[in-house]
C-alpha cells in the first residue's frame, strides 16, 4: 500500500502512514491555510486502508498545536478510523499541556474508539 510521508512545516504537521512498518502518526503543528484540502489525501488513504487493514493498528496523534479548522478535520480522521477493526488511538500531550489533554478527551468522547493517553 502507498506510503504517505510528509515532513512537518511551521504550519502543517508531520504525517507518516506506513502500513508495512506499522507506523501511523500525525505530529507537530497544524494550522494550514486550507485544512480541508490538506487533510483530504489523509482521509483518502484511510479509506483505502479500511478495505485492507492490519489486525491491529495504533494510530498516534502527537500534536503540539492545532487550529479550530484542523480540529474539525482531526475529528473527520478519527471518524474515518472508527469502523476499522483493531484500531486504537494513542494521544500524546506535553506533560504541562492541559489544553491538549482536554482536546484528546473531547475527541475520545465524540468517537467510539479506544484512546490511550501518554505524556511526552
Amino acid at each position, binding site marked *: 500500500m502507498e506510503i504517505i510521508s510528509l515532513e512537518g512545516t511551521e504550519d502543517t504537521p508531520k504525517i507518516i502512514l506506513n502500513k508495512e512498518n506499522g507506523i501511523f502518526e500525525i505530529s507537530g503543528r497544524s494550522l494550514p491555510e486550507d485544512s480541508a484540502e490538506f487533510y483530504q489525501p489523509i482521509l483518502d488513504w484511510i479509506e483505502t486502508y479500511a478495505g485492507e487493514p492490519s489486525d491491529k493498528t495504533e494510530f498516534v496523534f502527537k500534536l503540539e*498545536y492545532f487550529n479550530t*479548522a484542523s480540529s474539525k478535520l482531526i475529528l473527520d480522521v478519527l471518524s474515518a478510523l472508527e469502523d476499522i477493526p483493531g484500531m486504537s488511538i494513542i494521544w500524546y500531550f506535553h506533560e504541562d499541556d492541559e489544553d491538549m489533554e482536554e482536546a484528546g478527551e473531547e475527541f475520545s468522547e465524540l468517537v467510539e474508539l479506544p484512546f490511550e493517553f501518554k505524556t511526552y
Partner: protein
Amino acid sequence: MKHVYDLHQAMISENLILVYEGEFTQEITKSVLSMVERNMDSVGEDSTIKRKVFNVMVECLQNIVKHSEEDNVENIKEHSAIFMIGKNDNAYIITSGNAVGNDVKGKIAEKIDYINKQDRDGLKALYKEIIKTGSISEKGGAGLGFVDMARKSGEKLIYDFKDIDGQSSFFSLQTIISRV
C-alpha cells in the same frame, strides 16, 4: 516626522509588543506568529501562557485572512485590517480590527454575546456541539474560532463595531490571556 515619535510613544504607553496593519495572508500570519513567539521566548514566558497566546493569535489572524476575502467588503479600503498584541504585568492583550459588512454585524454580535454568557462547561459543550454538527465553510472556517478564543482566554471576549460608511463597520475584537 513627528508622527514617528508619536507612534513610538503610543506603542510604549499602550504596552504594545507588535502592531501590524495591512493585508493579511497565511504568510503574514506565520511571520506575526513567529515574531511574537520569539518575543515570548526571549523573556522566558511560561509555556502554558505561550501556548494560549499562540492559539488565540492564530484564530484571530486566520479569521481576518478568511473574512477579508468576503465579497461584501471588497470595496473597503484595500481589505486592510489591524492586528496588535500588548503585554502588561498581568496579561497579554490580543486585539484585531477589520471591516465587516453591516449585514453580518448582528450575527457576529449575537454569536459573541452567546459565547460570553457561557461558563467553562457551557463553552466546552458548545465547542463539542459545533464540531460534531458543523461543517467546514467555503471560507475554510469551522465556526469554532470565537468559542476557542473564549475557552483559551477564560475571560469574556470584548468587541465593538464602529460604522464606516453606512454599509460596513469596523469590527474590533479583544481577547485577554492572564499571566497570573
